[in-house]
């Protein structure tokens, strides 16, 4: 009781921190920094694509080229590599497709030949790649049935006709979710900042040697006290999540969140709050000084947000940085937000990659809990 009271009093004392990061989130999280307008018209989504075909123009390859022609503008005249790179960089071209030799045949025999795709940054490129993926996965699924090349082409004809309409809707929907993704990805920063600052401040206060001694001689079981602190920390993190969901509904607009996409965004953020809580406990297991909390929080929150693309879309970051980002749970949280944006239907197969990311963040939390326990056991032994 008295412990909970102290917990919330200290939290209230630091309410300024929470307000500050919420305002930052509202300001920057609702701003569009990726360069693409969030209200992309379908016309604008029709991407420029460059195709290099090394296969004969027949069978599935022919079908593929037709499909690309229907859904995108095929740009001509790019020959040299540097020119292409510039075009990709300036987003004049969204995707460069290299179709390998014997593509049609290999696909038919289920050998899953790989297209070489080079893409520019940003949302249009993502849509283009999704469009290409659709063709490939559909074709591969027919190939898996051991159908002949001609039958596959026929089936593709029908399947893709209906799908093109989905493509149109999908494109528009994705732009509709760009704002939500921006907001929830930026929340990486605000969630980490709020959760780490408060929980670490409280835990370092309670862990201070002098206070700990006094608590130890107090008439209360120290393990019970730790349980109370943990429970309140969890409640606090849940409140931070709730706050950012409510703010999100206001900033993004409820109509684009009251559906499967919204549910995924919100669940993703919830799991990330769990991770932030475990991270805060991990940090307070070795930080003993309240003055250091802010510094560490800044390194963690700002650092992970930069590296994992909460501020700047990940495509703009150097490859080395991006490779490093892959070890950070923030990367999977933000990547999940990007994947949710591009979701076109609600079936399990489509959602699975998103769930996988959420699962990775959840597992990271478990790992952090285990490490924290090992550290604090070690510290107890020394004391």
């Amino acid at each position, binding site marked *: *009781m*008295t412990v909970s*009271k*102290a917990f919330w*009093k*200290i939290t209230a*004392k*630091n309410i300024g921190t929470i307000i500050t990061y919420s305002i930052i989130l509202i300001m920057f999280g609702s701003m569009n920094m990726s360069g693409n307008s969030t209200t992309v018209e379908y016309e604008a989504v029709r991407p420029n694509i460059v195709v290099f075909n090394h296969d004969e123009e027949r069978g599935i390859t022919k079908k593929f080229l037709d499909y690309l022609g229907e859904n995108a503008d095929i740009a001509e005249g790019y020959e040299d590599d540097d020119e292409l790179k510039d075009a990709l960089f300036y987003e004049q071209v969204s995707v460069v497709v290299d179709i390998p030799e014997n593509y049609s045949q290999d696909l038919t025999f289920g050998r899953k030949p790989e297209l070489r795709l080079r893409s520019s940054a940003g949302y249009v490129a993502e849509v283009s790649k999704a469009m290409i993926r659709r063709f490939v996965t559909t074709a591969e699924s027919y190939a898996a049935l051991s159908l002949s090349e001609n039958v596959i082409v026929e089936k593709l004809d029908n399947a893709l006709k209906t799908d093109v309409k989905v493509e149109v809707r999908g494109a528009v929907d994705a732009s509709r979710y760009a704002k939500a993704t921006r907001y929830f990805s930026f929340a990486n920063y605000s969630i980490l900042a709020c959760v780490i600052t408060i929980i670490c*401040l409280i835990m370092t*206060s309670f862990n*201070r*040697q*002098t*206070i700990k*001694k*006094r*608590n*130890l*001689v*107090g*008439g*209360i*079981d120290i393990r019970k006290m730790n349980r109370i602190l943990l429970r309140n920390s969890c409640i606090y993190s849940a409140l931070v999540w709730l706050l950012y969901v409510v703010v999100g509904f206001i900033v993004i607009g409820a109509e684009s969140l009251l559906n499967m996409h919204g549910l995924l965004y919100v669940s993703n953020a919830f799991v990330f709050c769990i991770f932030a809580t475990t991270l805060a406990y991990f940090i307070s297991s070795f930080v003993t000084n*309240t003055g250091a909390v802010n510094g560490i929080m800044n390194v963690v929150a700002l650092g992970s947000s930069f590296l994992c693309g909460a501020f700047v879309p990940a495509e703009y970051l150097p490859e080395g940085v991006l490779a490093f980002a892959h070890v950070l749970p923030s990367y999977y949280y933000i990547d999940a937000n990007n994947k949710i944006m591009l979701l076109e239907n609600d079936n399990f197969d489509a959602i699975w990659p998103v769930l996988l990311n959420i699962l990775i963040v959840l597992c990271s939390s478990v790992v952090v809990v285990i490490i924290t326990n090992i550290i604090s056991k070690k510290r107890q032994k020394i004391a």
Partner: protein
Amino acid sequence: MKNVIDVKHLTKSYKSNKAVDDLSFAVKEGEILGLLGPNGSGKSTTMNCILSLLKFEAGEIKIFGKEMAPDAYDIKTKIGVVFQDVAVFDELTVYGNIDYFCGLYIEDKAMRAQYVEDALKLVGLEENKSQYPKQLSGGLLRRLNIACGIAHKPKLIFLDEPTVAVDPQSRNNILEGIKKLREDGATVVYTTHYMEEVEILCDRVIILDHGKIIASGTNDELKALAKIEEKVTIEIPDLAPEKLAGFDKIKNVSEVEYDNGILKIVYRKGKNNLIDMMEYLKENKIHYNKIFSERPTLNDVFLELTGKELRD
């Protein structure tokens, strides 16, 4: 009277350093016991062992007749501790801090509010109750530290050098407060290296050195150990050597020392010694500026027993 604390053969080492060495003593109900000793003599270590905050190699500790243990919560609820280092939450106000630590023991809200007010009054922090620790001066912070330790009206109170770095005015307030606590029925263990405090406050004193008890008893009993009855100090600007020799022959005088215009005389026995001294000064027409007499201090006891000063 019952023993509130029984310590038997307590031994505690830090690696090869024996901080507490086969210590045995008891604290009686309602008394203020002083633990006096120079820095590093093992006062805090003894206290932390009694409170089960430290593991020790040997010994037995009973509080209120029961074995003390880290999970002896029934005993712990009746104890209040003021540690040597200030232990308060920077993020809570003066009131909030006392309320928190009191709340570790007292669940009832109304009762706790009353107790917190009482504690504020006891240490004289009523006007600072909505301030934060950072806004308090060193002395006020110490007082807050004390209030946090005793607000729940414990039956047994440990205070570890609560007055370090406190100005004399505040120190007197604190000592008065501790006396009040005893009047309300608490037993107090008071740790310090200020002998003056022990003399003012404590009923009984244990003098520690190198983790061992070198003497214990009431103030008077201890002073008897110093084998000094009285010390007289006289300021005489210039004293002729032949007249200095005469002091030795005055009745009861056992030691004479003259240095830098200050004459120090030690009496080991006798009464009314000062009157004899004044007569001698008058007869020999010795001019003096100041004269005063003191009873022996605990420092003299310490000096007598260990050959060194209590304070360096």
